[in-house]
């Protein structure tokens, strides 16, 4: 067993236990996991895209993921992420095997933290994590709220995702 597998197995057990204690609100309690890494970096940017790019550069440079694409849509609330080659994929796979809906993405936590800390975003929330272990990729839908007034600005995210794909709005950073 390599060190990363060992580490992911430990984390999977922790998240499994956490889910068992808290059920579907477990993910609401894990948003600080990963922030120590990103807060140790000099993340810069004056808008959402710049901050996300800056985060992803550090994440990829550290080898935490190989290839990350992002897009913002849905009245600037929907942040879509496609994360390939994440070193925590083993954790997500373990959880999925055990019938637990994956709820904690460390990379999304890092991005949310910096949107809040650097740009003063009101709040952010990981709404959905779709793990495709065959493709070695996770696809996330996150809600990012620049201000409290953005709460309640709704749209159809399946339509928004289609729009992102059809208009090739993905911004991709690779190792």
């Amino acid at each position, binding site marked *: 067993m390599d060190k990363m597998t060992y580490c992911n197995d430990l984390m999977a057990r922790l998240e499994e236990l956490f889910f068992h204690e808290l059920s579907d609100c477990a993910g609401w309690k894990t948003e600080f996991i990963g922030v120590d890494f990103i807060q140790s970096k000099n993340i810069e940017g004056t808008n959402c895209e710049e901050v996300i790019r800056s985060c992803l550069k550090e994440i990829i440079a550290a080898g935490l993921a190989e290839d990350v694409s992002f897009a913002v849509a849905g009245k600037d*609330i929907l942040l879509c992420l496609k994360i390939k080659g994440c070193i925590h994929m083993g954790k997500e796979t373990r959880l999925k095997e055990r019938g637990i809906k994956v709820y904690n993405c460390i990379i999304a936590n890092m991005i949310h933290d910096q949107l809040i800390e650097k740009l003063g975003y009101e709040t952010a929330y990981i*709404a*959905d994590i779709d793990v495709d272990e065959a493709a070695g990729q996770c696809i996330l839908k996150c809600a990012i709220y620049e201000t409290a007034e953005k*709460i*309640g600005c709704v749209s159809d995210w399946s339509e928004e995702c289609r729009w992102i794909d059809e208009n090739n709005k993905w911004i991709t950073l690779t190792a």
Partner: protein
Amino acid sequence: MADILEVISSRKSIRRFNSDPVPEEMIDKILEAARWAPTGENYQPWRFIVVRDQETRNKIGDLAKVGSGSRMTAWYCMGHLQKRFEGIKDPVKRARVLRFMYSGEVSEFAKAAPVVIAVLGTLTVGSVDVPYDLSAAVENILLEAHSLGLGGCWVHGPVASSRDAIKFKKILDIPTEMSAYKVIAYVAIGWALEQRKYPRPKIPLEELVYYEKFGKKDKQ
């Protein structure tokens, strides 16, 4: 001993209050009820903060609104919230209810409740049951308030996420270290503006209870 099933079964969550003040003696009684909740090894880890100040309640209400609204906006955008309320057949009413939820207004009512009781637990006395003890105390608060003719609602929204829990602690000057206190909820209390004799439908016991072993519904 009196059977309190009528008190228990007639209680419902009240989110709309009139502005009449709640007498101090009633709050004292409610807190006394909380103090008598069951607690593992009698640790009594609960602490309560009674908030009447309007400005503080506004801050709590805003935090709760953002907390609930941020999640429910996303659930609506993904279609989950609509499924939850598809039982409401009137489309106008359904749209109104959905907007009430995803806007976060559903959790904003600390602003209108004359009293808010924050329920927190110390993590430093050795108790191994903090969230469970606190939950029992919240239930006692709700039942005592109801028995006094008051309405109340248990609200997890503003402390549901770790980041929001810190914001909540800062509003009330609670130490923010994870090792010190855990806030599990606040309870809004006041005189009800809405009246419903009995709460929402409950799942029948036959669907909830097994006998002797999991899955065995037969009493014999």
